[in-house]
């Protein structure tokens, strides 16, 4: 099964198979020979490729992986064909709107919109204070505010739904 790997704005197609007991990896159709070995169960890995050795640190889940090589950090997203189909379907259903979640824990300083209000792309929706910085959260596209789930002074955890927008494009 194909695996789609996104990293730094690019996408790679990976095919991993076993031919005669040997692992074969294709990246974008080209063979990639690597020797991969875990140094511990915690994400310390050594990878050998084309005569070079790389000490890599890697953590994450089957879909979100974070890797560090010689101080450089890579955030990767992975999904296989079946998962990709499902995620495309889900995206289409949202139609440019969807729930607006807190990307980090914080305190709601001010909510600048009301239910039913129409908002422009770039319009501030609310102000969230996190890490002692005040950040304006903006609409990315024209939308209607379907529901508001927080009020000023609320402490919200990461992932909390703040506001639900209904896209005008759908």
């Amino acid at each position, binding site marked *: 099964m194909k695996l789609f790997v996104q990293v730094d704005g690019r996408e790679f197609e990976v095919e991993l198979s076993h031919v005669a007991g040997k692992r074969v990896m294709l990246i974008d159709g080209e063979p990639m020979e690597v020797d991969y070995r875990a140094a511990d169960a915690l994400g310390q890995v050594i990878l050998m*490729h084309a005569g070079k050795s790389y000490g890599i*640190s890697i953590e994450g889940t089957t879909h*979100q992986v974070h890797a560090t090589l010689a101080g450089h950090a890579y955030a990767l997203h992975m999904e296989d064909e079946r998962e990709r189909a499902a995620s495309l379907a889900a995206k289409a259903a949202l139609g440019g709107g969807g729930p607006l979640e807190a990307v980090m824990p914080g305190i709601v300083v001010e909510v600048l919109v009301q239910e039913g209000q129409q908002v422009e792309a770039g319009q501030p929706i609310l102000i969230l204070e996190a890490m002692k910085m005040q950040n304006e959260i903006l609409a990315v596209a024209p939308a209607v505010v379907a529901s508001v789930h927080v009020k000023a002074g609320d402490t919200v955890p990461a992932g909390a739904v703040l506001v639900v927008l209904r896209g005008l494009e759908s």
Partner: protein
Amino acid sequence: MFERILIANRGEIALRVIRTAREMGIECVAVYSDVDATAMHTRMAHSAVALSGSTPQETYLNMDKILDAALATGAQAIHPGYGFLSENAEFARRVMAAGLVWIGPPPGAITTMGDKIESRRAMAKAGVPCVPGLQDPVDDFQAALTAAETIGYPIAIKAAAGGGGKGIRIVRQASEMESAFRTASGEAKSSFGDGRVYLERYLDHPRHIEIQVLFDQHGHGVHLFERECSIQRRHQKLVEEAPSPVIDPATREAMGQVALQAAAHVNYEGAGTVEFLWSNGEFFFLEMNTRLQVEHPVTEMITGVDLVRQQILVAAGMPLEITQEDLVIRGHSIEVRINAEDPSAGYLPSTGVLHNLRMSGGPWVRLDTGMFRHMEVGLTYDPMLGKLIVWGPNRTAAIERMKRAIAEMNVGGVRTSMPAALMVLEHERFVAGDFDTHFLESLEIRPPEQYLRLIVAAAALYRHGLVERSAMDPLASERRGWRERGRREYSAYARRQLERGESQ
């Protein structure tokens, strides 16, 4: 000498103070909030007192609880570290009133220097060069607009009670004044409980250069040369070094003398830092930090002087044993801050549990951190997890050593600022010493493309391993997969918005 001191702080700086105190044979009393019950500073102290609660207000900012802890444990002095109560003159006064020794400058010096407006007034009187600007707070944005005409754009709006870059906004034209004034004042109010702001000229291509000073209680003072702290973002420093590549011996001597003059003017005692803006060979007083700085280790590395030890000796009334003639710069030192933030996504704060730690080591590498495996990194406190410090015989050697040390380090579980520091160290302008305080903000932090295929291969094989391991419980894996993907969608969404918000 003290037999027992209390350290009214947490994280790497509490551990830093404990380390020196232990070496001096002094017992340490740690205080800790609920989340810090198993923190390194709690474990490494001789005694630890719980400050029940989790917010800074309930714990490390709570004067009553801290004073009670000191009195209950028989501590004779309090070291405040940096941040929290370290520049709080009222706390210093209360410490003394309780019959304890305050390991810091006299409250009067804190008050004068802590108020940016008052400090500029005092410094102007002392003959110290200051940045053109108003010395009084402005009441509203209309007043600010009027004042700006006199000072000239660009203008910096700063919190009168602020510090560390918080509450600062830059205004490049009159039309930006209203919104900038509002947010600056709002942040000042929420951060410091004091919404007053003042204006000053914003210097172009400025460098942030600061002088470390040390005064005893008997009027003797020395300066320990400069630190170059221009690599910063939103006025939060990321990479610091000593000495500065642009300061020649004559300028160093001049800045040192001005710093001593500034400190002497307020009858300073202990360790302090006089910050300057340097622009085209001129330098202007910016502010004085009346405490130990985060970046103090680079000064320690080039002078061999343990600044915390000196703070404790001075507080105990000992005369300074160091003379200005004893102090010589040896080699070069660089510090990189390890912040829990994602520099490739607008330095978004990052939280998580540290589960894949790999620490740097080897020759002339120093790691000051309270990190340990299983530590939870939240948002309650400062995102700084630690500092990597290197020494080298010269700047080039120190840069190469820091690149090597960063390559060895991994803080798995959260994103960190280290990739940004690495890009700085690899940049030809940094290597040439040609940068200013805007340099870091101009960098787009992206990993090198040449390793992308390799990393993709590693990630695919990592996933393969996870899938094989979870073959016994395929449903759990599936569920987690979906949840993670869903979270990513919305993270990306909110991140884009946040970035837009910031570019305003």
